[in-house]
Each structure stands twice: as structure tokens, then as C-alpha cells.
């Protein structure tokens, strides 16, 4: 039985460190102030999806792994210098904003179109991975919409674990309330998994993996086409940062109850 998979990971980039970002209105719609000046990393949720995908691909010889990213290609190039060292994959770059304001339907449509146009992609082996949320958006719907566009009906969100059973079916653990997991059995590909954190550690940096990856990444980045995302789907009205201002200090040997009382006072202050 051929258990090789064709895994496509959808992964955006987000500013790091996360902070109070300031939206601004521009001629092309809402954007983040100083967006191109903010250091960026691969979206942490999607990173977990990538690590899980790389792990799964390594268990199934003959598998192929793609990472599809809609992000400004100059920023993506910088992010890839780090990510490329962690796992072998093929990059498909879509030159698009990554500020979190793009309409999820429009992003999903572009991602689905790109996935469908991957040469040699075998739908019967297709697994679409991504983060079940995004560190910059938090809407948690993009992956679901990608699945719908691709007519993939087996969808799982908040996934922490995927186990391949002896008959090729999957046992999938999805997060539910109360710190528990919903256990599902899926017959196998095609399926879409929106990952939570998973259980795997971040892969070690390996320069040989990185060198091999970057030989194909740079041409992919150079070929990246600008995505025509509608900029009138979202209108930025206002933003209100938290009232409380950060007041961190180090305390030692203080009872937790006292800390809790003080925290409560701080949270509820005017």
C-alpha cells in the first residue's frame, strides 16, 4: 500500500514580537502602521502545522510537502531564511499583504486556486494543513473556507495529534472544552487539518536542509505573483487599546492569593 502523502501547508507570517499594533487607513484599504518595519515570523499556529507535516512526510516515504504562503515576498524571504533550516519542503509564494485585514473568503479563494494548480498534486493523497487560528487574525475561518473551496469534507480544527493507523486511516485528536480531546477516525486523504499546537518540538536547525531548500525557494520567491485581494471588503472604523497599562515587576515569596487580589484590582481599575 502506498501511504505517501501530498501535504500542503498554508502558512502566513505575523509580526514578532506580538504587540499592540496600530491599524491605519491607506489607499489600498486598512493596513498596519509601519507594517514593513515590523520583524516577522511564520505564524506560530501554522508553524506547528508545518512541523507536523514534515514529521508525517518523513514517516511516509515518497511524500511531498509544499508550503503555500500569502505574504509580502520581501518579508517572506527573510522569514524563510530561518524556517528553511527546519524541514524540507517546496515553497509557493503569493505576494500579498499579511496584515490580517484581508477578507478570509478572498484569501481562502486564492489559496485554494494555488493549491489546485500545483503540478502533479494527487487529490487522493492530499492533506491540507494550516493553523486553526492565526496570531494576527484570530478569526479561525480561513482554513475551513480553503477546505470548502477544495470540496474537502473531512475537516478537523484545533488538532493536537494525528496518528496513522495500520489500515491507513487516521486517528485525530481535536481540542474541545475542559482540556479534553475529541477523538475522530478518518479514512485518510483527502482531509484538512487546522492545527493547534500539536505535540512535536520545533525541529532543529540544519544548514544542509536549509541550503537545499533555498536553492528552490529563491526562484519561487522571484516568481511570486501579486494576489489581487479586494480591499473594500473590510473597513477599519476604530480601535481601542486596553485601558490597563503594563506594569510588570518581580516579586518573590509572595502568596498566590495576594497576587491574585492585586491582579483583580489592577484589571478592574478605571
Amino acid at each position, binding site marked *: 500500500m502506498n501511504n505517501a502523502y501530498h501535504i500542503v501547508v498554508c502558512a502566513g507570517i505575523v509580526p514578532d514580537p506580538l504587540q499592540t499594533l496600530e491599524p491605519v487607513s491607506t489607499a489600498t484599504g486598512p493596513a498596519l502602521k509601519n507594517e514593513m518595519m515590523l520583524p516577522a515570523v511564520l505564524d506560530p499556529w501554522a508553524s506547528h502545522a508545518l512541523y507536523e507535516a514534515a514529521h508525517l512526510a518523513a514517516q511516509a516515504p515518497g511524500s511531498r510537502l509544499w508550503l503555500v504562503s500569502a505574504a509580502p515576498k520581501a518579508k517572506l524571504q527573510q522569514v524563510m531564511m530561518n524556517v528553511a533550516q527546519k524541514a524540507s519542503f517546496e515553497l509557493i509564494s503569493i505576494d500579498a499583504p499579511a496584515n490580517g485585514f484581508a477578507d478570509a473568503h478572498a484569501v481562502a479563494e486564492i489559496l485554494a486556486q494555488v493549491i489546485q494548480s500545483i503540478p502533479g498534486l494527487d487529490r487522493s493523497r492530499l492533506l491540507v494543513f494550516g493553523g486553526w487560528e492565526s496570531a494576527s487574525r484570530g478569526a479561525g475561518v480561513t482554513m475551513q473556507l480553503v477546505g470548502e473551496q477544495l470540496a474537502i469534507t473531512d475537516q478537523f480544527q484545533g488538532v493536537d495529534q494525528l496518528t496513522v493507523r495500520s489500515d491507513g486511516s487516521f486517528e485525530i485528536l481535536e481540542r474541545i472544552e475542559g482540556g479534553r480531546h475529541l477523538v475522530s477516525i478518518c479514512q485518510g486523504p483527502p482531509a484538512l487539518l487546522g492545527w493547534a499546537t500539536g505535540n512535536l518540538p520545533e525541529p532543529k*536547525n*540544519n*544548514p*544542509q536542509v536549509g541550503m537545499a531548500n*533555498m536553492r528552490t525557494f*529563491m526562484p519561487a520567491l522571484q516568481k511570486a505573483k501579486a494576489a489581487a485581494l479586494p480591499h473594500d471588503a473590510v473597513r477599519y472604523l476604530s480601535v481601542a487599546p486596553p485601558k490597563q497599562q503594563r506594569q510588570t515587576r518581580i516579586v*518573590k515569596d509572595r502568596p498566590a492569593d495576594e497576587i491574585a487580589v492585586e491582579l483583580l484590582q489592577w484589571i478592574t481599575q478605571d
Partner: protein
Amino acid sequence: MSASVPTPGADEAPPAVERQQMSVDIAGVGFGPAMGGFLTTLSRNLLNEDGSPRLESTVSPGMPLQVICCERADGLGFGVSGAVTRARGIRASFPGVDFTQIPMAVPVAKEKLVYLLDPIGASRRSLAMRMADWKMRALGLIVGGRDHAVELPFTPKFMRKHGGLVLSLGQFNQWVSEQVTSSGVVQVWPGMPVSAPLIEENGVCGIRLADQGVNLDGTPSQGFMPGMDIRAGLTVVADGPVGAVGRKIDEHFGLPEGNHQREWALGMKMVVELREDSGLEAGTVLHTLGFPEPEIFGFLYVHPERLASVGIFIPSWFRSPVRTAYRYLQHYLLHPYLWRHLQGGVLKSWGAKSLQESGRIGEPFLAGHGYARIGEGSGSTNVLAGSGVDEAWTTGVQLAEAVIELVEQKKPFTQENLEQTYVRRRRQSWVDAESEIAADSRNGFQEGVVTGLIGMAVAGITRGAFFMPRPVRPVQESASALERIYASRIPPSELKQLREECAAQGSALHDRIMDRCGWLEIPFDGRLLISHQDALLMGGSVQAPPGYADHVVFIRRELCQNCEPKLCVEMCSGQAITRGEGGVPAFDREKCVYCGACLWNCRASADGEKGNVEFGAGAGGLHSALN
């Protein structure tokens, strides 16, 4: 032939493990301005127009030179750094380029040198300085009569940055990395700390990457992956003044006779978003002296988009054993001359960095068999002009030109060949000519700030013909006894009590001393005036990826136990070093911003020169929120 890595400070050699190996033509360490200059120049010459190799690899025949650069931090240009530079070398590398396309870059428009008086009366001014201050106030030279400052009528020529650029070094480095990596012919790897050079009998044959999958003490743990050995015909060392590779090369080969690296400074900076009516124009450059202490120099550079970099330098010759940077920086912001502009601003980013201020006197061997040194770690900083970025960049360009010459002539990277090409270029350049003028310009600071300023002026005006011929003391002598420093302000018995209280509480001493000396409490506003810990959270985020060993190690515990006050604790920019059990400092790498202050501030010396801190190659570090 087998290669070894030096293990200074270790009692026993670590057990041998099998390591992956790979071979490249050129292995670089550290991605900063020097490496930017090197790779920019080299990458443009690796291929012919038809795509065939112009400079052919020896490890992959038929291919262009295989060039890899490893950077410790897990992003390129993630650290904060506002800089002003004349940008002569940088402009020469990018003729016709409009630098304002780089975020936060703007031409220098206005430059001032400002003497800040002490509006609080808490600084450690000598009687002579106090009298001079009094005269200045009396003569009405104070700007606006209320801002406690004197704008000097001109900026000395040797300090001027006219025609230069105000930059964010983080943004500049990111821009350069985009240029050099988009060509696809060189590879730059962030998140890849290099633990040591691979040293053969009389040269360097590559680098060893840091082990991954280890415990904090470096012992193997789950997923142990020994650091790869990357063998290279040429190792380009550009890992800065506290970089592990450069320092280990120095420890192995020594420094040229008469040279030393004892002068340092800690630079701590913030990027501030100014209020709409701050009154500061983009391109404004302020150099300040006199406050918060006479020994502390400061700066304010104004970027476009209402952003400003503001910071201070704490030099090693500021002989207070409880010197700190963060609180002094806050008092600096609050000085009336600056606060009138900064009030209402918001902290966007924060960070710190050690600067090697020995300059030419600290120059190591610039080249040896299989290796070459560029950038700040090679002593390129001009300590008279207060300029390092452009000089570092230019040394990188010079090495790249030398490499091109040698490869074209099919000559190996021997010490002799590198000296005839790289070192010769450097010696014939403006970088060397100006560093020669600057070499002894700061000698006077060993005797006091006024003497130092006079010495700088004399050396600058006479272009190095005259200078203060003072001996430079070893770093261990640079911090004098607490009791002597504060003899006129705090009785010894009270100092003793403060020490004991802080030791019992496990806290640093500097805040208590500053309170006692009359420094006012900082009025936190949650925006710009924030606690030290908040600066770590609001100004950035320390990345400490798991699976790497601690990069700060206290070598001999007994030396730390007997060391008081612990300057490593007082000076730690991220409060990552605290008083630990048994008198040995504790290190928390999740707070370490990799400034390296602990390295050169350590006074617990075993041999009178080298401190008791081993500062290794650490992954991660500070991601500034807006760099």
C-alpha cells in the same frame, strides 16, 4: 588533519562525538554591517552575466564559490539600533541608490552638540564641574533659560556626520540581507549560533555550530544533535566584539604586541514614537554630554515618521561599581532639554549592546591562515568620531575585494596572501588613516572626564599628532571600590547596610544607591517611562529557543562568591543575571538581550585580565518590537 576547538575555562575537554561535516569555500560568522559589506561586494562578482561561475568553487567544481553565513540571532536585523553614519563606504557600494527607501533612513539635516547640566543635583560632578556649571547658568548661556543645557556653537569636525545618514541598523541590515540573498548565490542563516572556530595548528579551517538538543549545562538531552563542523577555505569572522568565534581566535593566537581590548561601553537605546508637535525634524542629530553623569554620553537621532532613537553610553571608565544603564537612561529621557520633545512619546522598541571602544588599540590580527577579521571585532570602530557602522561596512568590502583578487589568481587564503590583499587594502584606506588618528584620543578618560574631553579635542584638532599618553588600566581595575566612589555622599556604615540588605533580598544595589544619592523616583507613565521589566516586554521579546546551552557561564564559582559588588548583576541590561544562591550569580537566558555587558564588567578575574564569565554563542536574543 584533525581540527580542534578551543575550550577556554573548561577543566576537561568534552567527550568526542561524531559530528556532521560539510564543506564550503567561505564560512562567515555574524551578519552585521561588516558582513553586509562583504557579501554585497562578493555576491555581485560570483557569476558572469550568462550565469556561469566567475569565481569558481574548489569544494563544488563547476559551481560558483559556496558561501554561507551563520548568524546567531534567529532573525537578521531583529535588534534595535539607531545609528548615524557618514555612510561614505555604504554610499560607495550603492551608487545612485536612494537610501530613503529603507525604513527609518533619512539624510542628516541638523547636528548639535549639547552640554547637559544637572537639573537634579544628584550626579557625580566634581567641584570643578559644578563651578563651571554655575558659571554657565550665571552667564545665561542656558537654552531658553529653563532647559538646563548649553548648545555648543559648533560640532567639532572630527565628530560631524554632515552629509551622512540617520539609520535604523536593524532596518538597514534587513534591507541589505534582502539584496544579498535574493541573488541566490550566497546563503545567510539566522538562528545558527557558532560555538567556536575550528583551529588547526596555525590557522582556522572552519567553524563549529552550537550543539542542539542539550540541557542548559550543555549535556546532551532528548534529540541531541551535535553542532555541525563546517569546513571552509576562508572563515570570515564578523561576530562583533563579544562574539564567541572572534574571542576564541584571540585567546588562541593572542593579540598583536601592545594591543589590548580593555575599553568598552554599553549602549542602551530606545525607539520612541514622538508626539505630533514634538518640534523635532527628521534628520536631526543631537550628541550630548554631561548628564545623567559626566561620564555618560547620549544621543538623539530623529528618523522619519515621527520616530526617534534615543540612548546613552555607559563607558568602562565610568568607575562606579554599581553603574547601571536602564535607570540612567530614564533620567536621561527626563532631562528638560530632551523631555520637552519626548514628553507624550511612546516607547516602540528597546535594546542594548556592548561596544568595543579600544578601537585601533584593540585591533586583533586581521588575518591568519584561513581566516580574516572584519567589523567592530576587528577594531575598526573610530573611537574619536564615535563611528563604527561605515567603518565596519568598508572593512567587509575590502575583504571581499581581496577574496575576488585571490580567487581570480587561484591563490589560497593563507595569512601571507590575505595580508597582501585584505590587510594592505585596509592599511591604505581612510578607515585605517582615521583610526590611526583616533588610536590614543581617549587615553585621558582614564584620569577623568574633563581630561578625557581635552584629550579628545587635542587629538582631533591635531589629527592625532598630540594626545594624552596615559596607560589604560585593565578592566578589573576600571570599577573602583564602592566606598571610595561614594565617600563624600554615603557613610561607609550605611553603605555596608545597603549591601547587606540587597544581598539578603537578592536585589541589585544600583537603585538603592541612586535613591540615596538624590536621584528622583521615575514617574512611570506606562508609555515611555516604564519599568525595566516592562521594557523587556513592550520594547521587544527575548527569544530563548529550547535545546541550547546557557551562553553565560560563571567559570569558577569561588571567584564569584567572593566578588562584591557584583557588577555583572548591576550592569545586566535585561536583569537576566541576578544574585544566586551561595553568592554565585544566577543566569536566566529568557531575559538575556545578548548585550555582553557581563563579559567585560566581570571583575572576578583569575589571571588579572580575563574575567570569570564565559560568554558563548547563544541562539535567539532580543527581537525588538520596531527596529
